[in-house]
C-alpha cells in the first residue's frame, strides 16, 4: 500500500499495516526531518525492520540530497541477511508499483569468512585464519613481489578485481551475501573487496556493528562513508557492551611472551632490510617527520570517520623523535614490554587509573606520555615498511601498541586492574592486566558526531532514558511503542512461591537451597505436562544451570520431565549447542515436544528466535544479574555513578531486566504467535524490577499474577493456552491490530495511533 506519512509518500510492501508501524514511521520521519538522533523501542515481531526500510528508502527517494545513504547495522549474520531480504521485497514492490527499474544499490557486507570464494582460503574454518590467509595473498607488497617472482601465489579473484573491478561500479540491485558471491564467481572478482569498495557509493549498506564501532575495523572499512547518512542500530539493547568490548584490552603473560617474539622478529627484519634496502627506512623516517598531516587534513575536511584510537591532537603533531627510527622504536617497545612484565609479577590485586599508570611508568622506566600515544600509529607504519606478510602473527605486539596509545590518550573512562590469579582458582598464578573501558560513549562518539541521524532501536530498550545517558548523546525523539493486539497473545506470569510456600528466588543466599531447586524443578515438570511443543528455560548463569541440572538429575526430576518432553541443554561449546538447537527444533517439529535449557546472556538468548511452536513458553529461572563480584564491573558501576549519576543498583537492575526481557521476548515473534512468559523469581514482582520491563510486556502483567504459586501458574497457563489454541483469523485482527488503508485514514484511528507512541 501507499502511505502518506506527514506528506511523504511511502511505499509499504504489504496489503495491511499494523498501527504501531504507522506510528513508528511517523516518529522516524520526525527524527530524519530534524537531522537528529533517535531512540525507538518497538516490540519484536511487529515489523520494525520493514517499517524502517520503507520510510528511509522513501525519504532517500524524496530528498536524495539530504539523505544519501542508509547504514543499517545489525548484530548477527542471519539478521543481516534477513534485513537484505526484506529490502529486496520492498524494492520489488517499488518496481511493481512504479514500473521503474530499480536504481538503488544495496548490499550486505560481512567478514571475509562469509564472502570469500577463493577455494583454498574459504575452506578454512575460523575467521581469523581466513583473514590471515587472505592478507598473505593480497597485501600490496606481496603483489609487488610477484612482478619479480611470478611463482609468488596471489589471489586471482583479487587480481581480477583490482584490474577491472573498480572501473565500473556495481550495477544497481540488491546484493545479499550469497548474491555477492555469485556475482563474484561470475565475474571472477573478489566479493569481499568488491563489497568493501562498493559501500562507498551504495545507497544502502547492511553490516554488523563492529564495522562502525570497533575503531580497528571502522578505520579500514567505514572511514569514508558520507556524512549525510542515516545510521540505524537495530537490536541495539546491548550496544553499550559492544562499544566497551571494542575498546578494552586484556594482557596476559602469554600475550607478553608472544609480543616478545614479535619484537625479536621485527628486530631481525629491520636488520635484514638495513643491509639490503636502507632507503626504505629513510623514506619512512621522512614520512614520520612530516607527521600525520594527510590524516589531519582529511579529518578537518570532514571526509573521514574519526578514530577514537587516533585522537585529534596527535594528528597535528609529528611522531616524536625518540621513536622515529625503527631501532629506537623497537628499543622503546622493549622497555615498555619489560615494564608490563614487571607489573604482572604482582601478588595482590592492583587497581589504578590511567594517569596513575602513566606516572608510574615514567618513574620506573622513564617512558613519556607522548611517545606512548604514537605507539599504535608508529607500529602500523613500521609493519607497512617492513612488508610483513602475515599481520595476524603480529596481533600481540599490535595489541600492546594499541594499549599504549589508549592508556596515554584517555585519562578518563578507563581503568587498569591487575589480577594475579583468577578468583575461582586462587592457587594458580595467572596474572592478567585488564585495561577496561567503562565509558561506551568513547567508541560511539565519532558515529554520533559524524553522521546526520543515528537511530537506536530494539524490541527491548526500557527504560529509554538510560541509553542517551550512557552513550552521551541528545536524541530528538525517544519513543516506546506498544503492541496492539486483537487477542492478548502474551501471558507474563510471575511465580513467587512453590506449592509449599517456599519463596522462589535465585538470589545468592538461597542459591544452594534444595527447596528452591526442587520447586524450580516442579515448575518445569508441571509446565512440561501442559505446554505443547517447545519450552525454553533460561538460567541466570552457566554455573547455576549446571548445578541445578545436576541436582534435578539426582532428585529424579529430569527423568519425570523426560516422560513429557525431550531435554536439550546449552553447553559452552557453540558447535554442540548448535546441534542441540537443531535437534530441539526437530523434536518440536515432529510433535514430540522438547525443552531447551539455556543461559541468559548466552548465545542462544541473544541470537535465536523461538517462533510459534518452537517456543510456546519461556521460563526465566531467577533474575539474570551480572556477576557482581567482578572488579571490572565494580569499577564501571563506580564510574557510572560518578559520571552519569546512575545509581549502582539502578544500573544492575536495568542490565538484568534487559536481559530477562530479551530472553522472554524470544518467544513472541509476531501477532499470530503466542507464548507464556514465566518469571520464576519473587523479586520480579517488585516495582523497581517490573517497571524496567518493556512497556509491551509490562502492560499485560496483572496485579493478580504477581506472586503466584506453581499450581496457580499451571491453572492460568492452561486457561491461556486453551484460549490461544482457538483459530485466529485475519478478520479477527482487522480494524484492531491490523489496518487496511481506508481504516488507517479514518480520524478515529489516527487519534488512537497517536497514543501508541509513548514519549519518554
Amino acid at each position, binding site marked *: 500500500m501507499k502511505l502518506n506519512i506527514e506528506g511523504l509518500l511511502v511505499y509499504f510492501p504489504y496489503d495491511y499495516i499494523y498501527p504501531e508501524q504507522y506510528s513508528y514511521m511517523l516518529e522516524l520521519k520526525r527524527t530524519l526531518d530534524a537531522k537528529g538522533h533517535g531512540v525507538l523501542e518497538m516490540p519484536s515481531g511487529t515489523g520494525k525492520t520493514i517499517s524502517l526500510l520503507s520510510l528511509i528508502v522513501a525519504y532517500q527517494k524524496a530528498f536524495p540530497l539530504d539523505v544519501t545513504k542508509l547504514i543499517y547495522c545489525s548484530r548477527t549474520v542471519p539478521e543481516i541477511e534477513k534485513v537484505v531480504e526484506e529490502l529486496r521485497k520492498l524494492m520489488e514492490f517499488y518496481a511493481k508499483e512504479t514500473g521503474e527499474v530499480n536504481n538503488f544499490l544495496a548490499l550486505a557486507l560481512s567478514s571475509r569468512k562469509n564472502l570469500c570464494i577463493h577455494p583454498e582460503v574459504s575452506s578454512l574454518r575460523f575467521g581469523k585464519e581466513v583473514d590471515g590467509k587472505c592478507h598473505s595473498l593480497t597485501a600490496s607488497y606481496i603483489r609487488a613481489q610477484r612482478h619479480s617472482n611470478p611463482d609468488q601465489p596471489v589471489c586471482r579473484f583479487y587480481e581480477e578485481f583490482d584490474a577491472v573491478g573498480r572501473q565500473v561500479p556495481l550495477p544497481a540491485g540488491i546484493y545479499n551475501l550469497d548474491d555477492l558471491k555469485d556475482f563474484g564467481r561470475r565475474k571472477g572478482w573478489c566479493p569481499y573487496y568488491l563489497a568493501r569498495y562498493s559501500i562507498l557509493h551504495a545507497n544502502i549498506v547492511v553490516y554488523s556493528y563492529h564495522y562502525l564501532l570497533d575503531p580497528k575495523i571502522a578505520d579500514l572499512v567505514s572511514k569514508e562513508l558520507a556524512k549525510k547518512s542515516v545510521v540505524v542500530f537495530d537490536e541495539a539493547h546491548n550496544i553499550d557492551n559492544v562499544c566497551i568490548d571494542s575498546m578494552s584490552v586484556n594482557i596476559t603473560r602469554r600475550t607478553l611472551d608472544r609480543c616478545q617474539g614479535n619484537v625479536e622478529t621485527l628486530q631481525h627484519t629491520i636488520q635484514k632490510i638495513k643491509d639490503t634496502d636502507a632507503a626504505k627506512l629513510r623514506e619512512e623516517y621522512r614520512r614520520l617527520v612530516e607527521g600525520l598531516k594527510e590524516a589531519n587534513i582529511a579529518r578537518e575536511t570532514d571526509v573521514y570517520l574519526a578514530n577514537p584510537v587516533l585522537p585529534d591532537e596527535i594528528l597535528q603533531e609529528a611522531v616524536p623523535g625518540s621513536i622515529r627510527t625503527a631501532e629506537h622504536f623497537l628499543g622503546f617497545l622493549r622497555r615498555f614490554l619489560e615494564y608490563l612484565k614487571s607489573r604482572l609479577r604482582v601478588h595482590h590485586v592492583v587497581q589504578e587509573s590511567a594517569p596513575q599508570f602513566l606516572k608510574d611508568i615514567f618513574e620506573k622506566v622513564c617512558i613519556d606520555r607522548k611517545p606512548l600515544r604514537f605507539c599504535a600509529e608508529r607500529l602500523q607504519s613500521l609493519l607497512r615498511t617492513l612488508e610483513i606478510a602475515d599481520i595476524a602473527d603480529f596481533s600481540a605486539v599490535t*595489541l600492546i601498541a594499541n594499549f599504549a596509545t589508549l592508556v596515554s590518550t584517555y585519562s578518563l573512562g578507563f581503568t587498569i586492574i591487575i589480577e594475579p590469579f583468577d578468583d575461582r582458582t586462587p592457587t594458580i598464578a595467572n596474572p592478567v592486566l585488564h585495561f577496561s573501558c567503562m565509558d561506551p560513549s568513547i567508541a560511539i562518539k565519532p558515529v554520533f558526531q559524524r553522521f546526520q541521524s543515528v537511530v537506536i532501536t530494539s524490541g527491548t530498550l526500557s527504560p529509554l532514558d538510560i541509553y542517551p545517558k550512557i552513550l552521551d548523546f541528545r536524541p530528538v525523539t525517544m519513543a516506546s511503542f506498544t503492541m496492539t493486539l486483537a487477542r492478548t497473545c502474551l501471558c507474563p506470569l510471575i511465580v513467587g512461591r512453590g506449592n509449599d510456600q517456599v519463596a522462589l528466588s535465585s538470589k545468592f543466599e538461597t542459591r544452594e537451597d534444595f527447596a528452591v531447586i526442587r520447586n524450580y524443578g516442579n515448575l518445569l515438570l508441571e509446565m512440561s505436562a501442559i505446554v505443547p511443543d517447545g519450552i525454553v528455560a533460561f538460567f541466570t548463569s552457566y554455573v547455576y544451570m549446571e548445578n541445578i541440572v545436576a541436582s534435578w538429575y539426582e532428585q529424579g526430576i529430569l527423568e519425570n520431565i523426560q516422560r513429557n518432553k525431550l531435554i536439550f*541443554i546449552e*553447553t*559452552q561449546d557453540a558447535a554442540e549447542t*548448535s546441534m542441540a538447537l537443531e535437534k530441539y527444533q526437530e523434536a518440536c517439529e515432529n510433535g514430540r515436544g522438547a525443552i531447551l535449557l539455556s543461559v541468559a546472556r548466552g548465545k542462544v538468548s541473544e541470537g535465536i528466535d523461538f517462533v510459534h511452536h518452537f517456543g510456546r513458553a519461556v521460563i526465566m529461572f531467577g533474575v539474570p544479574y551480572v556477576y557482581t563480584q567482578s572488579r571490572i564491573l565494580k569499577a564501571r558501576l563506580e564510574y557510572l555513578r560518578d559520571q552519569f549519576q546512575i545509581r549502582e543498583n539502578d544500573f544492575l537492575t536495568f542490565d538484568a531486566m534487559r536481559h530477562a526481557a530479551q530472553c522472554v521476548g524470544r518467544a513472541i515473534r509476531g501477532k499470530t504467535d503466542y507464548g507464556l512468559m514465566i518469571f520464576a523469581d519473587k523479586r520480579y514482582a517488585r516495582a523497581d524490577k517490573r517497571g524496567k520491563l518493556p512497556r509491551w510486556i509490562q502492560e499485560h502483567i496483572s496485579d493478580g499474577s504477581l506472586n503466584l504459586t506453581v499450581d496457580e501458574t499451571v491453572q492460568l497457563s492452561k486457561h491461556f493456552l486453551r484460549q490461544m489454541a482457538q483459530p485466529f483469523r485475519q478478520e479477527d485482527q482487522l480494524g484492531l491490530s491490523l489496518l487496511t488503508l481506508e481504516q488507517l485514514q479514518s480520524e478515529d484511528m489516527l487519534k488512537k495511533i497517536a497514543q501508541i507512541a509513548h514519549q519518554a
Partner: protein
Amino acid sequence: MASLSEEVLLVVKKVRQRKQDGTLYLMAERIAWGPEGKDRFTVSHPYSDIRCQKISPDGKAKVQLQLVLHTGESTTFHFANESTALKDREAAKELLQQLLPKFKKKANKELEEKNRMLQEDPVLFQLYKDLVVSQVISAEEFWANRLGGLNNSEPAPYSNKQEVGISGAFLADIRPQTDGCNGLRYNLTTDIIESIFRTYPAVKQKYSENVPHSLTEKEFWTRFFQSHYFHRDRINTGTQDIFSECAKQDEKGLMSLVNKGVKNPLVDLLSLEDKTLDEGYGLKQALPSTSNTNKTVKESSNAAIIKRFNHHSAMVLAAGSRKNCFCHHPFTDSSLFSSEVPADQASETSSTDGNSRDSDFFQPPVKKVKLQEAIEYEDLQRESKQKTVALNLKKSDRYAHGPVPLQSQKYTTSQDIINAVNCIQQEMAHYKPNLTQVREQNSNTFLPSTEMVPSDIQGELKHLYVAAGELLRHFWSCFPVNTSFLEDKVIKMKSNLERFQMTKLSPFKEKLQRQYLGTNLTGHLEEMLQTAYGKFHIWQTRRMMRKT
C-alpha cells in the same frame, strides 16, 4: 477327537480339574484337558481365547494354575502329582508364557483391525449395522472376505504402519526396587530392552557380542546397570567395564553429529557472530578451555550429565524418526568421521569428501527458505487463495476421449483366445469392487431428480443400495458353484436376499408409497434382486436335473 495335524507340545499327567483326575495337553494352538480313561477332552481352550494365566503362591499346599479367558470365565488346574507337582506346573507355565503372547497379539490385532476399519469407513460401519446387527448375515460371513488377506499378508495401504517412537524416559521407567537385603532389583521388559537397543546401538552390539558366550543375559544387564554408562553422572571409565567402549563410541557419535554441523543457518551459533574480537580485546576473558585440569570433579561430572542428556535426546529422536537408517549408526558415523579428516587435503577422493562440499552447495536453498520464512508476516499479506496447479493440456482431444487403440487386433489362434480368457479369469479373481466409491454414481444415475426426493429418503436408499450390493456380492461370488460349501452358501445367500427384501426393501417401498413418492426409486434394486433370483432358479433347476 484331537485332530491329527495338531502337534502336542507338552503332556502333564495327574492334573485335576473339578476334582477329577486327568491329563493336561498343551498343543500348538490350544490347551486341553481330558479326564482319565477317556479319549476326549472336556476342556479345550484355544490360546487366543486366554487372557492370562495365574499361579498359586509358592507356599500353598495346592499347586494350581488358573486360566482366565477373555469372556471372564476361568478354569483351574490342580497339579496333583506329589513329587513333581511344582515342576510340572512350572513347565506348563513356562510354555504358556511363551505361547500366549503370540496368540494374544494375533487376536488383538484382528480385533483392532476390524475396529479400525469400521471406524475409518462410515459406509462400512453402516453396512455392518444393516447386515450384521439386524442379523441378515453373521459377523463371520461379513468379515470373511473382507479380512481375507489380512492374516496372511498385510494389505498394501496399511503395510507402512506408523513407526512407534521411543519414550524419552524409558531409562527412567526402570525403577530400581530394594529387595530388602542391600540389593537393588531392576525390572526389565522386552519393550525397555528394545528401546535401549534402538537408542543405543552400541549396547546392542555389546549384547550380541557377549551374550550368551561370555555372559548370561542376567549378568549382562546387571553390569549394564552398574556401569557408569547407565549412571550419567559417573565419569570414571574403568577399563574392565565392557560399556566403557560404548561410552567412547557414543562420544564419537556425538562428536560426528557436532562436526556435521547444522543445516539451518539460523541456528548455527558458530557463524552467528560476524566479527569476533581479536584475542586480547574485549571484557570477557577467553574461556579456560585448555586448562581442563583445574576443573573440579563436580564440575566435570555436571558437564558429563549435560552432555549425555543432549546425546540421549538426540538418539531417542533419531531412533524414533528413522529407525532403519540408524541401526548401523556407529559404523556409518565413524566412517563419516574419518572421511572428515582428509577432506581438506585430497581432492581426488571427491566422492567421500563430498560431504562437506555438498553441504556447501545445498546450503543456499535451505538458507533462502529459512530466511524467507523468518521475514514473512502472514497477517500483513492478503490471504492468498489456495494455490492450485493449472491443468496444462497439450492435446485436449486426447484428454476428452481417452486413449484409443492404435489398431484393432484380431485373435488368430484358439490358443490366443484361451490365453486371453485365462487372463481375464485371473484378473476377475482378484477383482474387488469398491462399492463405497461407486455409490455416488449409482444414486446420481438412478435419481435424476434428486431435488424431488427428501434427503433422508435419499440417505436411506443409499444405505439400502450398499447393503443390497454387499449381499449380492456374496451371492454372486458363489458362482460357479463347485463345492458343497458353496452350495450351502448360495442357498443361504438366497434366503438372505429374500429376507433382505422382506425386512428392508418392502418397508421402505411402503414408506415411499405413503409419502407419495415414485416407487420406481426401488425399481433398480428389485431388478437386481430379480436377476439374482433368476440365476438362482436356473442353477437350482439345473442341479435338480443333474441329480435326477
